[in-house]
Structures are given as C-alpha cells and as structure tokens.
C-alpha cells in the first residue's frame, strides 16, 4: 500500500481538510521563532557576512533556505530591511514572536472556502512547518504587490499544502505591508501526477467545437 495519508487515516480529501481546519482553529499561541534561531544544519556563505541554510529548490523560484548574519562567532537570524528578499523570506519562514500577523485566512475545503477564525499567520506557519519542509516563492498579484507562495511538503505521505499570502510587500518601496488575506490549499497529492506541464498538439483531423463562455 502506498504511503498515502488518505488511505492510512481512512479519510478522503474533504475529511482530511476538515480535520486540519479543526486542528488549526484550536491552536494555542506558539513560540513561533524557536525553530529558526538555532538552525540544525551547517550554514553556507551567501554573500558578505550573510549565510544561509543549504538551499533546496522544489521548483524554480520555490526555495527552502533561511538567512543569517554572522556576528563574530555567532549567527543571528537576519532581520534587515535593506536586504529585502532575504528579509521577506525570513519574515515568512521565521515569524517574529511579537508579530502575530493577524489577517484573514481561508482554507479551501471540499466544495467551499472556510474562514480560519482567530488563526494568526505566524501560528499557522509554525504549526505546518513542524512536520513539513517549507519552500517559499514570490510573484506579484493583480495590484502589483509581492505575493508569497508557501509550500509545506510532506515527503513520506507524498502530499503538500499550499499557502498563498496576498499583498504581503511592496517591492518598489521595499517594505512589508500588512497582508490582506491568505488562502490555504491542503493535501495536494503528488504521487498520482504524471506531468504538471503537459504539452499537446492540435489534432490534424476534424476538431469538435466547444462553447466555453460562461
């Protein structure tokens, strides 16, 4: 039997989502930064006095590293507005305990979206990152602000969660904004995927006409 969480737990995707929603909405506030202060892996030079955890790439643009500044013989978690992208990565991966980042988060459920009432972004990220490898990437939303995509990958059970944090930063002004919303997609299987980027060619014979206007 493949190591599939739905088979092992006897729950379908919808039920898994409900179970996670219940766990998240009953979270106690966490000591969110503790996992980032003392990395358990050897750091590698990034540039100048900045070091990073060994970078691992899930997909182009989705990376796992965190950034640290060497101060003498010690390494401190990087918190520096001048290093915008590195700072933003740490801002998400290692939320500061005094920044609960309370925003509206919804979870994509089976057939609907459900509010994660009272769940802080920092707590959610901390909770999910404990059992998963976290990858962070950035793109831009319709308003031109930086949007973060965070993947929480569970290697053994071959699934991942995806958190999209909208309106997180203004790249031009290099500042982190108050995020307006975030959406969590859960239990996305990867073991049943042949290709996420398939290529097709138009059929040379007669083609069937389909109306796609809603």
């Amino acid at each position, binding site marked *: 039997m493949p190591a599939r969480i739905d088979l092992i737990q006897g729950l*379908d995707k919808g039920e898994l989502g409900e179970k996670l929603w219940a766990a998240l909405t009953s979270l106690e506030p966490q000591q969110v930064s503790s996992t980032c202060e003392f990395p358990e892996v050897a750091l590698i030079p990034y540039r100048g006095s900045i070091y990073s955890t060994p970078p691992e790439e899930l997909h182009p643009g989705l990376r796992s590293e965190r950034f640290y500044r060497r101060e003498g013989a010690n390494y401190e978690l990087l918190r520096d507005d001048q290093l915008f992208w590195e700072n933003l990565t740490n801002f998400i991966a290692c939320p500061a305990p005094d920044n609960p980042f309370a925003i509206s988060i919804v979870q994509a459920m089976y057939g609907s979206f459900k509010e994660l009432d009272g769940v802080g972004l920092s707590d959610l990220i901390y909770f999910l990152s404990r059992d998963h490898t976290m990858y962070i*990437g950035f*793109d831009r939303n319709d308003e031109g602000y930086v949007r973060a995509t965070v993947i929480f990958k569970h290697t053994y059970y071959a699934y991942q969660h995806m958190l999209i944090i909208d309106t997180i930063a203004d790249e031009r*002004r290099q500042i982190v904004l108050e995020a307006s919303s975030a959406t969590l997609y859960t239990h996305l299987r990867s073991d049943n995927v042949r290709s996420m980027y398939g290529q097709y060619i138009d059929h040379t014979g007669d*083609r069937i006409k*389909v109306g796609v206007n809603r």
Partner: protein
Amino acid sequence: MHRSAVVRLAKVYCLLFLFVTPSVSAQNRTEVRLLGLPDVAFQQQLEAGASHVVTAMNLAFGSKTPPQFEAPFATPAGRDVINELWSRAPFRCLRTSLHLRADYIPGEDRYEIRGIPLQVKDGFGAEYHEEGVLIVDRSGKLDGFKFGLEAHRYRALLEDRRDVQEYAHRQKILDFVENYQTAYNRKDISFIDNVFSEHALIIVGRVVQEDESRGDNLFQQLGNERVQFIRRSKLEYLASLRSVFDRNEYIEVDFSEIEIFRHHTREAIYGVNLVQRWRSYSTATEGYRDVGYLFLLIDFSDETKPMVHVRTWQPQSLTAEDEIIDMGFFDLE
C-alpha cells in the same frame, strides 16, 4: 644645476602636478548621467546630486571615515540611512561614469536611481558586489538609500515569479481534480452538478460488439470500431450518474497519471488527462470495475468556481495511445 635645467624641471613638476592631481581625484569621482527625465534643468540637478553622493562614498571608503555629504545634496534622513549602512559595511563605486535611469515613484513623489555597482567590504574584510539604489526627493536631494537586486538576478527573479505563479495555479487545478474525484466517491451529485457548465459536452465511450456498433458511432474518427461514443447533455449525464449512484452502495474512483495542459491561446482554460479506475459494489449485483482515460476541459477564469466544459471517457483496454482525447481535439468558441 644649470638654471635652465631647474626651469625645465620646474616645468615638468608643474606638468606632473597638473596631470597627477586631477587623475587622483578621478579615481574617486563617479559621474552619473541620467536618462528618463523630461526636464533638462532637473536632470542636471539630479545628476549633480547623484555624482556628489557616489563620489562622497568613494572618498569615504579611501579615508575610512563616514561619508560627508554637502547640505544641498542630502537630507538628514538620507545621510542617516547611508551612515547606518556604512557603519556595518563600507562601500564604493569603482566606475568613473555611470549611465542610469531615474524612475519616478508616483505614490511617494520621489525618484529611484537604480543600478549603481558597488563594492561592499564586510566586517571580516571580504568584498562582494551589491547594486545600490539612490532615493532622491523632488528637490534633487538624497533622501534614502538601499541595496537592490543586481540586474541579472532581478531578471531571474522575474522569470522565477512567472514559474511560481503558474506552479501555484496548477496546484489549484490539482486541488479541484482531487475534489472532483472525491465527489464520485461520496456519490455527491450536487457537487458534480455545480461544476459542469449547463452546455457541457460529455462523451462516453461504450464498449460494444462490432455488429452493434455498425453505423452508430457518433465520433467514428475518435476510436476503433469496438468503441461506440455517445454524446450526452449535462442533464442526461447527471440522470444516468444518479441512477448509478442509487444502484450501488459503494463507489470507489481513483485518479492517477494526471497530466495538466494549458490551452495555447486561452490562458484560463486547462485540459486534464488522467487514468480513472472505477469500482462499484452493491449487494444485488456482482459489482463493476473498469479502467479508462478521462479528459476534462476546465475553465479556471473564476478560480473559486472552476467550470467543466468537456468530459470524455475512453476504455483503456481498447484505446491506443495516439487515440486518447486531449485538448488538441477541440476548438473553443
């Protein structure tokens, strides 16, 4: 020494002084020329300010003292930002001339001059490259400074961004496909009703004997003569499905070999090909199972409400690889 020789030597020293003094100065001086400004007088004002600021950094790097900016060229805030960065790691520009753009930032009524190549020396003596960004107010004074991204890294980031966006989009499609699969396992006719468009094209391949199939094939070109393709409306399909759900106590549908395709011209339209394994049981019958190729054409223009416009099913055992229906079989209108 002969007097004429002294005069000649003095002339040489004078010439050396004339040439050497400006060249020492030129080592530290960086002239900034700007593009993208409509007003020539303002352009010259910004150029003078930017040149002064970068040159002050260079002089400070050589003398190991904080940069000194003359009042007309920097606000107190601008001076503080640079001094704060300087205290951690000094920097200089090794280029004597730069041709850069000044971009106006409408929300802040300021200009950004990006792309200043800087050598930064950290506390351990290591030097590395950074791109400096000068922030200049409307009066031409330095009002801020930051390290930006080098141009090639910036381009790579923009490319990665498109990748991240598309990756996230395809994960959402996967999420939808898995929920769609769950709907069959739950016998949730309401979910399926909601996701099919009212005029959805539904094609079901039915395995028939050769005699039975003669003359009946709706889409003869799509399959071999032992598969009869039946076209159904959404209402007909849902009625048939409801009957199957009612007849069976247990239905197990599993999707595998999922492939996602984006339409060549319609960005919100995606095709999904997959292998569907179907098993159903009831106490009254022996149960039923089949394996088939499923194709879904899905409109994601509203990500919160994806819509299925086409669903086709072909029996796997009677369908050659090159006969599998995919997005290339359809013209969108």
